[in-house]
């Protein structure tokens, strides 16, 4: 408990609304009025979760998310009135962990916040004792939750990291899509294939030399995803 949540919106009434619902839950709430401020506050205060509006002056939510992802893997929920399919996919593509559409109810808001925070709080699936996992040019350091490709550190969002861990844990076996959704996102997400596709595609962009011919995160059509055993 007492996670720090940064809420970003240029509408004081939205800030007040979200704050009013989060404070009684014991969260510590920080506020920013535009994208630029949001980026600065993420760097300065290292919040546990960011709730980001899209349409804002100075720097909009998408631009802010892009900058945040340059240096931080903090979970980000986009909260927007822009509900078009392409906006949603764009947000997820830029590394958002979830997307809430305005208008929303207080309970929906809290459920999403809890779900995203739950993801990062759950202990890693790897059994103790194994500190480093290698797969080709890929290295996962569990103790630090860091991922390297060719010895260069790769920034993964909290969600992407959890997807990767699921595949590592089941190394050499297929992980069904609905199980990935359930384990990483939560029970209420098992039907949301799109959110999984976007995360898998982002993981490949970051981890694979050739994202179109992946060797680390491989699709098993109609079933799920696998991190295949490599020929030694």
């Amino acid at each position, binding site marked *: 408990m007492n996670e720090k949540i940064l809420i970003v919106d240029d509408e004081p009434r*939205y800030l007040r609304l979200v704050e*009013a619902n989060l404070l009684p839950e014991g969260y510590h709430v920080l506020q920013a009025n535009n994208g630029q401020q949001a980026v600065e506050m993420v760097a300065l205060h290292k919040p546990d979760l960011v709730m980001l509006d899209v349409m804002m002056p100075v720097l909009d939510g998408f631009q802010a998310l892009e900058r945040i992802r340059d240096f931080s893997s903090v979970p980000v929920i986009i909260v927007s009135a822009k509900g078009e399919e392409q906006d949603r996919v764009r947000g997820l593509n830029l590394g958002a962990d979830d997307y809430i559409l*305005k*208008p929303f109810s207080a309970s929906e808001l809290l459920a999403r916040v809890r779900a995203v925070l739950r993801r990062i709080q759950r202990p890693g699936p790897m059994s103790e004792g194994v500190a480093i996992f290698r797969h080709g040019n890929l290295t996962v350091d569990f103790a630090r939750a860091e991922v390297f490709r060719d010895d260069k550190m790769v920034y993964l969002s909290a969600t992407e990291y959890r997807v990767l861990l699921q595949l590592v844990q089941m190394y050499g076996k297929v992980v069904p899509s609905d199980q990935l959704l359930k384990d990483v996102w939560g029970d209420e997400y098992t039907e949301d294939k799109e959110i999984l596709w976007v995360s898998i595609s982002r993981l490949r962009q970051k981890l694979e030399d050739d994202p179109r011919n992946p060797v680390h995160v491989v699709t098993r059509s109609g079933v799920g995803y696998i991190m295949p055993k490599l020929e030694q």
Partner: protein
Amino acid sequence: MPDTTTLTVPLSPQELQALYEISNAVAREPDIEKALEHIVKLTRPVLIFDNIVVYVKSSDGMQPAFARIVGRGRAAEADLAWGESIASNVINTGHLEIVEERLDNWEQNRLNLRFLLALPLHGGDEIQGAVVFGRFGGPPFSQEQIRLSEFVATHIGQLLVRQQLVGRIAVLEAERRLQTIQENFIAMVSHELRSPLGFIKGYTTTLLRQDISWDENTRYEFLKIIDEEAEHLRGLIDNLLDSSRLQSGAMKMQLQHTPIDELIREIYHRVKRLSQSIDIQLDIKQSFTTWVDPVRFTQVIDNLIANAVKYAEASPISILVDIVDKHPLTSPKAGHIAVTDFGPGIEAEYVEHVFKRFYRVPGKTAQYGAGLGLFICREIMHAHGGEIGCESSLGHGTTFHLYLPLREETEMPSNNMESPE
């Protein structure tokens, strides 16, 4: 040895020049009418004809699209329908045709001996129409002239195809523009409506949370927000309805002969009473009484004041009433009301657009607005036979000028809607 039976007579330099210029005219002239004029002018010295008509195939046969009488037939200018039957044949068969018409008395009046040369106009895979050259009094068309006429027909065919394409592109463009406007409108309206709805939904469900009992102050704060946002939503819906009623002419003005100073004073005192924070001044230099719909006219003034509050935060607002000379309205004098703020102003390039439906000045940070308010103001002013104008200076402020025709009590406008558009 050249085969003398085929048509190998070389073109004269004059003919070559004409061909070259015809090609040029077709390629360069965007207007089909002008291009045909060029062709007629260039062709006539080498082809020699008195009449030319271009028929274009239409859904119910064919229509003359262009006709010129350039030579000896000028006296018979009224008789433009000639060549119809030969043109229709050519369109049907797709082959060139030549006829010799001997009208009554042709031996005495050589204009009654007519040679008609008709050629199909090909464009793409289809026959687009036919061109008919008429020569009155002979001699018959020579083989070289027929060859030249084929060249001309090819170019006219291309012109027709191009014109069709231009027409189709224009239609598609217009459809695309309309669609973009509609899509923007739907996106904008849904966003505008969703914003207050989001607050109402959010704050209501917050109050309904069963795991928390909100204290009295918080409950009041949230309910007040819900109330204000519901009001905002109502205003948006009213504006949408008003603008579509004004657009379709379905809104009728309930005109009354009204003393403007009284009406403006009423608005002034109401604004003062409702929001002490607004610094509003009233300056009635010269009042007037004329025909207005008091409700709709109040709506215009309210809208201008609301805009000033919204876009010129914390600026004083001044309202001036007087009578001006030489305004280009019905009479030499017009009633004038000016609503001025001393805010940031509007950039010159945007000022002319502010009255357009759905227009919003780019870069303004104000939260809401569907771009309907000033459009509605303008439509209401037009319905009064009046006018609205905007004058703005960056860094100094903005003034909206309203002009009303001065009409005596006996001069009630008969037509309630006097929209100039």
